[in-house]
């Protein structure tokens, strides 16, 4: 293993951001950003092709001392749980650059720098094997995201940016104290693997579980702390929404998988019913809210809350199918919802309205666009043959095994999903052509197609042949279950 692959994956976008700063023309900035994200994507594919699916151990691990006096190291590695998200982040990074090609007109350089910085930090979060490094990346992300929403967002962007920043910061800071407590109990190290191996008393586990819960629940978002999400999503530019929905929301769930479950197994088992209840609540409540929206972006945003409820439901079902489904559903949601936000952005660029009532008969105006929209809409409502069907089926079967009532509520949420998504599609794509929107519209061009096609390919690939994806997660999920059950069974 000569090449430090993960360091490259994390540092290439960061270096790219620095390079962008010295470029002068907007065109050069765009092409360089695209080249950097493509290079990063290629590195991620190289990583996945060398990924060993038979082991749960950390692969491609690297470790360099950083602050030895406090037991902090720059330590990276991926296992079955994180590998998919590293890839997803790089994929959506490329999509984001393409989606912002013409949508961002002012301060292009600053935007692309923020985008690449964001990508570096997100990859850092998924690759980090050191809790301090994880936290630094986790919180540093606030800076570029705050700027992306606040500078290039819509009308209410400043309010949305503040809300996003303060919500996430408040959550993260409690997490920070939790991290330090963990550090102190875990023998003064921030090494995630070493901290996972130790056995904490239940009292401390409980406290830490809730400290972590605040941070992760804000990010997911789970229901009582979800209110920043619709604002942030609606106001953010398209690329910002894609990042938010595609990657940022996954981090909360990833936090549960990487920290709460393996480090605090007893507390996770003990509070799993509570978490299942919150998840079921999010599924139904998010679905009901989505049903009532007229704004396309808001609809997709609330549907995200509902769909992320499926993810946490699967995770806290604490069985193999639930966990596998949850992780696969995280990946699916990133692809599908990322695509839906992209589509909302594409049509908004043409019509400058997001109100569903303004649309009608798009099928006649932009057939290619509408066909792909149909694919992603169906994927979002988990039609068999699409990616979400596989994930949602696994989650539901795991959820029913864990708790009948919450499983039933999740099914209700899936029905709601069909209602609001089909309703939206019907109004927007079918029927007579709306008089509000321009009569002539450009259909999808080559650049836009380049952003859409890979996402569409993953929708169908996962939907028709999910085996390779489940194989990646399999060993790690089994190991995780052993960790949770061996220590958590006592409760």
């Amino acid at each position: 293993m000569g090449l430090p692959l993960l360091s490259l994956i994390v540092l290439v976008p960061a270096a790219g951001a620095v390079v962008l700063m010295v470029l002068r023309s907007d065109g050069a900035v765009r092409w360089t950003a695209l080249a950097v994200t493509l290079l990063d994507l290629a590195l991620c594919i190289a990583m996945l092709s060398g990924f060993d699916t038979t082991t749960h151990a950390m692969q491609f691990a690297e470790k360099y001392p950083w602050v030895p006096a406090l037991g902090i190291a720059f330590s990276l590695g991926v296992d079955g749980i994180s590998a998919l998200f590293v890839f997803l982040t790089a994929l959506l990074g490329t999509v984001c650059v393409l989606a912002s090609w013409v949508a961002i007109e002012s301060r292009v350089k600053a935007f692309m720098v923020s985008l690449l910085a964001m990508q570096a930090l997100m990859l850092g979060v998924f690759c980090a094997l050191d809790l301090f490094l994880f936290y630094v990346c986790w919180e540093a992300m606030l800076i570029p995201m705050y700027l992306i929403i606040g500078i290039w967002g819509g009308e209410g962007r400043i309010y949305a940016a503040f809300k996003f920043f303060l919500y996430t910061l408040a959550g993260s800071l409690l997490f920070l104290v939790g991290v330090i407590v963990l550090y102190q109990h875990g023998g003064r190290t921030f090494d995630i693997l070493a901290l996972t191996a130790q056995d904490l008393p239940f009292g401390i586990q409980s406290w830490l579980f809730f400290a972590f819960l605040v941070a992760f629940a804000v990010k997911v978002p789970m229901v009582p702390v979800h209110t920043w999400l619709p604002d942030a999503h609606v106001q953010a530019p398209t690329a910002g929404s894609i990042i938010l929905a595609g990657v940022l929301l996954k981090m909360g769930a990833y936090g549960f998988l990487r920290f709460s479950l393996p480090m605090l197994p007893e507390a996770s088992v003990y509070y799993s019913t509570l978490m299942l209840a919150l998840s079921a609540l999010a599924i139904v409540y998010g679905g009901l809210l989505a049903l009532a929206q007229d704004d396309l972006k808001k609809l997709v945003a609330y549907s995200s809350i509902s769909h992320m409820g499926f993810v946490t439901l699967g995770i806290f079902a604490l069985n193999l199918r639930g966990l596998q489904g949850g992780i696969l559903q995280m990946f699916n949601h990133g692809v599908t919802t990322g695509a839906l936000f992209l589509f909302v952005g594409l049509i908004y660029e043409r019509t400058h309205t997001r109100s569903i009532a303004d649309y009608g008969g798009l099928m006649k105006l932009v057939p290619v666009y509408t066909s792909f929209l149909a694919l992603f809409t169906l994927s979002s409502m988990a039609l068999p043959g699409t990616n979400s069907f596989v994930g949602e089926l696994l989650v539901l079967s795991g959820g029913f095994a864990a708790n009948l009532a919450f499983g039933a509520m999740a099914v209700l949420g899936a029905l709601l999903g069909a209602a609001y998504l089909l309703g939206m599609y019907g109004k927007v794509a079918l029927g007579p052509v709306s008089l509000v929107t321009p009569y002539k519209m450009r259909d999808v061009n080559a650049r836009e197609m380049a952003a859409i096609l890979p996402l569409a390919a993953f929708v169908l690939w996962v939907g028709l042949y999910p085996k390779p994806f489940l194989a990646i997660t399999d060993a790690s999920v089994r190991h995780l279950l052993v960790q949770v059950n061996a220590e958590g069974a006592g409760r």
Partner: protein
Amino acid sequence: MNAATLYQSAVASLPEIVVITGACILLILGQLVRTRREDVLLWASVAVVATAALLTLMPAGEVRTAYAGMFVADSFSVFFKSIFYLTTLLTFLLSRRYADLEGIGSSEYYVLLLFTLSGMMIMASATDLLSIYVGLELTVLCTYVLTGFLRHERRSNEAALKYVILGAVSTGIFLYGVSLVYGLTGTTQLDAMAAAVAGDPRDPGLLLAVVFIVAGLVFKVGAVPFHMWVPDVYEGAPTTITAFMSVGPKAAGFAVILRVFLNPLVAGSDAWIVVAVIAVVTMALGSFVALVQDNFKRLLAYSSIAHAGFALFGIVAGGADGIASVMLYLLIYAFMNLGIFGIVIMMRNGAFSGEIIEDYAGFARSHAVLALLMLLYLFSLAGIPPTAGFFAKFYVLVALVERGFVVLAVIAVLLSAVAAYFYIRIVMLIYMREPTRAFEPALPPMVRATLAVTAAGTIGIGLFPAWFLQLAQNAVFGG
């Protein structure tokens, strides 16, 4: 005291002697330098500071006591003196143009800054309540004058007067505490005090004395309930002096507080409860009141109160890590705070005061690099990684949690979330609003250099904290 010990004492305090002598020579030199040739004064002052720095850093590592145990040159003092040199040098660099603009560039300005520096150095090295007092008074007397240096401005005069009166009261309280200690223990030396009290360290009389001393010192770092002078003085003083005071004398105050608290006598008493309460209230007040400020200097005043509160948490934690965390915090604070003040000073040009926060709206549109620097300093002050400000807070929290003060750590982080609001509000203004005016920041090379140094410190310590952490820890363990 014979010649040999006198010689030893003089060697140990050579940097202080150099600074004071240099200041005296400059005072005379100032009368000879013609107007429009003030650059000579500036570079002479820089040379004095540089010489002192060299003399301090060269023999670093050995502990030398002097003046019959009233003074010590140890690695602890070296660390603090380095902060003072850095602060003073950067203040000199920031001052040149600003002083011209405000018409305060006379030789006294530099001389007084040098005398303040010497006072701070004595504070860092003092190991006797009386030598602490000498350093303290030397520092504050000079800053009283510097605060009122804008003679034609009412604000400046008012600030100076307020500062003098409140400062005198706090000095009185401090001296009263010293006299109580002397009455109880028969000594004013910090080391001897602990030995003199063989009995109960929780003696109420002693506790009272400690509380008085702490109260006197708390005034210097601008913590509640002796914070009232801070906003007015920070607003009224020339901005360069505000920048200097917010970092240098404050760090000196912390140096003394640490010395007093390192003392087993105080460490054994329950004084930490007092400090914990002060820390919480200080941070809360600073953070909440700063939310409603519209003057940049006042905002930074409350921000500095909040930061003093956070640093006090490190003193509550105590122990080697606690002390090292305070020291590292002060070093990092010096970089980021001088940076943001450098921006405010740079904006002062022509009719534009640069003091009203709203005036910065849309600054990023025309000055991308300067706006990025501002963003860096502000996020660092807010404590967001990967800036140095985050690591400063992080280390204090580690020290707190290790001592079992988890609840205090939670309070500290929640209050710093409140504080984050007013920093990111400024970021919002400069990045997300449309500009309403043209900006013409004054950027002579010296100001550029200051901004470069502070930015390098703010991002550098954030990314590679290991070496600086080592410095702070060595300063505690080695001293």
